[in-house]
C-alpha cells in the first residue's frame, strides 16, 4: 500500500511552505486591477493580472479603510502584501495591505530627490530646530479656513488652552496653486502677526492631495518663518518634506495643536502645586526664623555683660569687706595701745602712789614741791599731802627734833 496524504494534510503542508517563505510574506506586485468587488462586509476582492498571468487578491476591511487611493478595474497598481493559501478553495492568493497607483512612482522619486537635497543643505538638522514655547499667547494656523483640520485644531485649543489667541492665515492646501499660496500665508504671518508658534496643518488625503507639502518652495519658506513651525499633515503614516523641515512634526493636525499647548488641567494642577509649595516654604521659613531667634537669644544671654557685672560686683564686695576688716584691725590695734597707755597713765597718777603710802610735800608759803632736803630749811611750813588729806608741819633742825622726841617719851 502506498503512503498517502489526505487533501487537508497536503494543503496544510503547502500552506506552511508559503507561510515560511520570507519572499512571499513581504512582497510588492505590479499589475492591473480586474474583477474588483467591494463586499458588504467591507473587504475588497479583486484579481491582479498582466499579459501572461493573474493572481487572486483580498484586502480585508481594516486595510481597505486606510487606503487613500481607491482602485478601479483597469488601474495599473503596485500592491503590497503576503501570498498565502486559502485552504477551503485550494487556491493561493495575495492578501493585500497597500495599493498604490503605479504612476505614483515618479512622485516618490521626486520626493526622495528633494529630501536628499534639502537634507544635504542641512535644512533638517536638529540644531536648526527651534524650541516650542511652553505658553503660546498667539498661535498662528496656516491651513484652509474651511478645512476639517482647522476645526480640529480649534477644538483642541479650546479644550486645552483657551488662553491663546488664534490667528488663521488662510491658504489653499491642495492643487497646483497650493505651494505658492502656502508660501504667501507664511509670509503674511511673518509680516503682520506676532505669533509665538505656527501650526501648518492639513487633514488626510491621497499622496497627490498632500503633494503641496512636498514642494521645495514650501520647505524653504517654513525655514523662513519667524515663529517655530509645527507641521501636522495627513495621517500618522504620511511623511512630507514639510514634516522634515518643521521645527516639530505632529502626526495629525489635532496632535499639532496639542504639541503647541499645555493642558489646562495640568496647568491648574501645577499652579495648585506651586501654591502649596509656597505655603509650606513660608511655614518652614517662619519656623526656622523662630529657631534662629531662640538660638540668638541663648547666645546673647551667653555673651551678656550681666555675668561680668556680677563678678565685678562680687570683687567690689570682697574689696569692701577686706577694707572693713583692715580698718577693724587697725582700730583694735589702736584700742589696745590706748588701754596700755591708760594703764600706764593710771600707774603714773601720783594719787595712786599716795595710796600706797607715799606723800607729796609742798612748801606752804609758795606751794613749791619739796623734792630735796635743800628745798626746805628749818622753820619753813610744809604741807604734806597724803592720799586722804593734808598734814601741816614745820621743818625742825635735827637736834631740836631729837630732843622733842625724848621729851615726849
Amino acid at each position: 500500500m502506498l503512503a498517502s496524504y489526505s487533501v487537508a494534510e497536503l494543503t496544510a503542508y503547502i500552506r506552511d511552505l508559503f507561510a515560511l517563505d520570507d519572499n512571499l510574506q513581504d512582497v510588492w506586485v505590479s499589475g492591473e486591477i480586474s474583477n474588483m468587488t467591494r463586499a458588504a462586509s467591507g473587504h475588497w476582492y479583486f484579481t491582479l493580472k498582466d499579459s501572461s498571468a493573474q493572481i487572486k487578491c483580498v484586502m480585508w476591511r481594516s486595510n481597505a479603510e486606510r487606503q487613500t487611493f481607491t482602485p478601479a478595474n483597469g488601474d495599473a497598481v503596485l500592491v503590497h502584501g503576503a501570498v498565502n493559501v486559502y485552504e477551503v478553495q485550494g487556491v493561493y492568493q495575495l492578501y493585500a495591505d497597500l495599493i498604490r497607483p503605479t504612476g505614483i512612482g515618479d512622485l516618490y522619486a521626486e520626493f526622495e530627490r528633494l529630501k536628499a537635497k534639502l537634507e544635504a543643505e542641512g535644512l533638517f538638522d536638529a540644531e536648526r530646530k527651534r524650541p516650542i514655547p511652553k505658553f503660546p499667547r498667539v498661535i498662528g494656523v496656516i491651513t484652509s479656513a474651511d478645512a476639517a483640520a482647522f476645526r480640529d485644531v480649534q477644538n483642541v485649543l479650546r479644550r486645552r488652552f483657551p488662553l491663546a489667541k488664534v490667528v488663521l492665515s488662510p491658504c489653499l492646501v491642495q492643487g497646483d496653486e497650493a505651494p505658492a499660496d502656502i508660501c504667501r500665508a507664511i509670509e503674511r504671518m511673518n509680516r503682520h502677526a506676532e505669533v509665538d508658534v505656527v501650526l501648518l496643518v492639513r487633514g488626510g488625503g491621497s499622496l497627490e492631495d498632500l503633494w503641496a507639502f512636498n514642494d521645495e518652495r514650501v520647505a524653504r519658506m517654513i525655514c523662513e518663518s519667524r515663529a517655530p513651525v509645527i507641521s501636522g499633515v495627513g495621517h500618522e503614516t504620511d511623511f512630507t518634506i514639510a514634516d522634515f523641515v518643521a521645527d516639530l512634526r505632529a502626526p495629525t493636525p489635532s496632535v499639532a495643536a496639542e504639541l503647541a499647548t499645555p493642558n489646562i488641567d495640568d496647568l491648574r494642577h501645577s499652579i495648585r502645586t506651586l501654591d502649596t509649595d509656597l505655603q509650606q516654604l513660608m511655614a518652614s521659613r517662619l519656623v526656622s526664623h523662630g529657631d534662629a531667634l531662640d538660638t540668638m537669644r541663648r547666645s546673647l544671654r551667653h555673651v551678656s555683660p550681666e555675668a561680668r557685672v556680677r563678678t565685678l560686683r562680687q570683687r567690689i564686695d570682697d574689696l569692701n569687706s577686706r577694707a572693713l576688716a583692715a580698718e577693724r584691725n587697725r582700730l583694735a590695734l589702736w584700742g589696745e595701745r590706748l588701754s596700755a597707755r591708760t594703764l600706764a597713765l593710771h600707774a603714773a597718777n601720783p594719787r595712786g602712789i599716795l595710796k600706797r603710802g607715799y606723800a607729796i610735800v609742798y612748801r606752804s608759803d609758795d606751794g613749791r614741791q619739796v623734792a630735796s632736803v635743800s628745798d626746805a630749811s628749818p622753820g619753813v611750813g610744809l604741807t604734806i599731802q597724803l592720799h586722804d588729806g593734808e598734814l601741816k608741819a614745820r621743818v625742825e633742825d635735827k637736834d631740836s627734833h631729837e630732843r622733842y622726841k625724848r621729851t615726849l617719851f
Partner: protein
Amino acid sequence: MSDINELSFEDAYAELEAIVLKLESGELSLEESVALFERGRRLSEHCQTLLDQAELRVSRLTDDGRLEPMN
C-alpha cells in the same frame, strides 16, 4: 514690581515659579520672604482666574494685515 492684574498668564506663571525657587533658596530676610509669599499667593490666584475666564479667540489675517474676528 508690576501690577499683577496686568500680567499675562505666561508672565504670572513664570514669576510664580521664580518666587517658589527663590523661597526655596532660603537666602532671604524674613521681610523679603513674607513679601514674596504674599505676591506668590496673588500670582497663583491671578493664574487660576485667567484660566477660569479664558475663551479662545480666533481671527483671520487678511492680505493687508488686518485681523478679522472669526467667532
